[in-house]
């Protein structure tokens, strides 16, 4: 039947584009090229050796970092601050973002404030957070939560607005309860937006936490980096940055995998 032919056309169009292996190879090549440039600059003496240490020293410092038990204490503190802050910011962001997207009045009234505050660097709230919560973990959690809140609220509101209204009518025609509407229609229809808001919110929670730690703290990866910096242990500083970078890339790809699992967007036919 004609339908079957149409279907095979729809499927084959997905195969266009570069292959996975070529993408991976290009990625590896990019890292190698950057490392090479780094090493050339380090050995050329153009910049102070302290600013751009040779990669061997950074690698040594990285291994030392990985075997030091203290590292895991700091990592644990930072992880707790990021996760707790992100969780709070995410929940608050969803709680504000859903009515912002669903109710015209609320969205029009509150939206501009949220958008305005979203662009302000959250570090300016650190002094207040410290006054309120002290220099320990709590003030970092507050800063992380504040950082995560805004992108989550904005993306969630946009996600609610883009839900196809006919899907809501289908739900009503099947007489779903309010809870079923939320969990069976709204939530899956917003899945992409929720995952995007999680990625953005999580990234900014990490930024908020590390900024807070670098500014004033007694534990965490930001504190560790700042300690190395103050004592001019530059390879050690790079080792901490490398660790943060690897952790960030790892969590990010984990989260985007969450979004890719299901729910292909229908092409216009």
């Amino acid at each position, binding site marked *: 039947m*004609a*339908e079957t032919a*149409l*279907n095979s056309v*729809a*499927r084959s169009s997905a195969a266009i584009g570069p292959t996975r292996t070529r993408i991976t190879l290009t990625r590896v090549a990019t890292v190698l090229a950057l490392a090479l440039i780094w090493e050339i600059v380090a050995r050329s003496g153009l910049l102070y050796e302290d600013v751009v240490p040779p990669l061997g020293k950074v690698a040594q410092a990285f291994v030392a970092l990985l075997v030091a038990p203290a590292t895991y204490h700091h990592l644990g503190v930072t992880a707790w601050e990021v996760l707790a802050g992100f969780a709070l910011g995410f929940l608050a962001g969803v709680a504000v973002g859903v009515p912002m997207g669903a109710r015209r009045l609320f969205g029009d009234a509150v939206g501009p404030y949220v958008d305005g505050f979203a662009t302000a660097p959250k570090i300016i709230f650190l002094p207040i957070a410290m006054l309120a919560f002290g220099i320990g973990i709590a003030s970092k959690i507050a800063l992380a939560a504040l950082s995560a809140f805004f992108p989550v609220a904005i993306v969630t509101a946009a996600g609610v607005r883009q839900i*196809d209204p*006919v*899907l809501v*009518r*289908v739900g*009503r*025609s*099947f*007489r*779903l309860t309010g809870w*079923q509407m939320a969990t*069976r*229609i709204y939530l*899956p*229809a917003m*899945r992409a937006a929720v995952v995007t808001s999680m990625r953005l919110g999580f990234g900014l929670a990490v930024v908020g936490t590390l900024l807070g730690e670098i500014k004033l703290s007694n534990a965490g990866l930001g504190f560790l980096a700042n300690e190395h910096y103050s004592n001019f242990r530059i390879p050690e500083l790079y080792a901490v940055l490398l660790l943060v970078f690897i952790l960030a890339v790892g969590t990010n790809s984990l989260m985007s995998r969450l979004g890719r699992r*299901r*729910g*292909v*967007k*229908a*092409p216009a*036919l």
Partner: protein
Amino acid sequence: MLAVENITKRFATPEGTISALEGVALDVPKGRFVALIGPSGCGKSTLFNIIGGLVDDYAGRVLIDGHPIDGTHHDVGMVFQEESTFPWLTTVENVAFPLDVTGVPKAERLERARRLLALVGLEGFENRFPAELSGGMRQRTAIARTLAFEPKLLLMDEPFGALDEQTRLLLGDQVLRIHRELEQTTLLITHSITEAVQLADQVIVMTYRPGRVKRVVEIDLPRPRTSEIVSSPEFGRLVATIWNDLREEASLGMKDIELHARAGH
């Protein structure tokens, strides 16, 4: 089975009150296939929403088996004009959806969903996502999903409106088969005369704004039918009869739209 009594619906607009429907009354007896046809702007989608219970604040009554209904009702299953399959569910999960939310056990609901997919000619596509299907296949999935709800009345609003004429004729055959096998009472809202005559036992012609029932045409073509019926002289005669009624209304509608476009400049 379905009785619509004296339905009137008015909308308030900035330019004043518009009467969308004025005293509309119709009956769909059990097992019959009735098509409602009218020009754009005759309020047929409003009537669809009223019968389906998605619109309130109207005058008149909708009755199922003699009982007035208010709001959405288990006996009325709606198929929408727009693309309405859930893109995050496979075909079989889409069809099983109304059974899932009413608590039918998994094995049973999947079994019933598979049977319905076979009925609409989609066996073999159970585990595909809507994005992998054609527009016609997605609408058939939506029809199967509504049938899974086991409504007494299947209420469809231009389900194939977005598809081309040839696909519509072929899908018409599937709809005829569904109607024959399930003896499903059906009310189809459409703007296609050929679709109405090809499928229905009775065609109700609506007037342009306000929407009223202008004429009821009995389609006495023999059943079982297939799309081949379109070449018969009887078919041509019925299409011509309906077009005679509809032409006047459609040109009224067109004039109105052109008038609005002119006023807008």
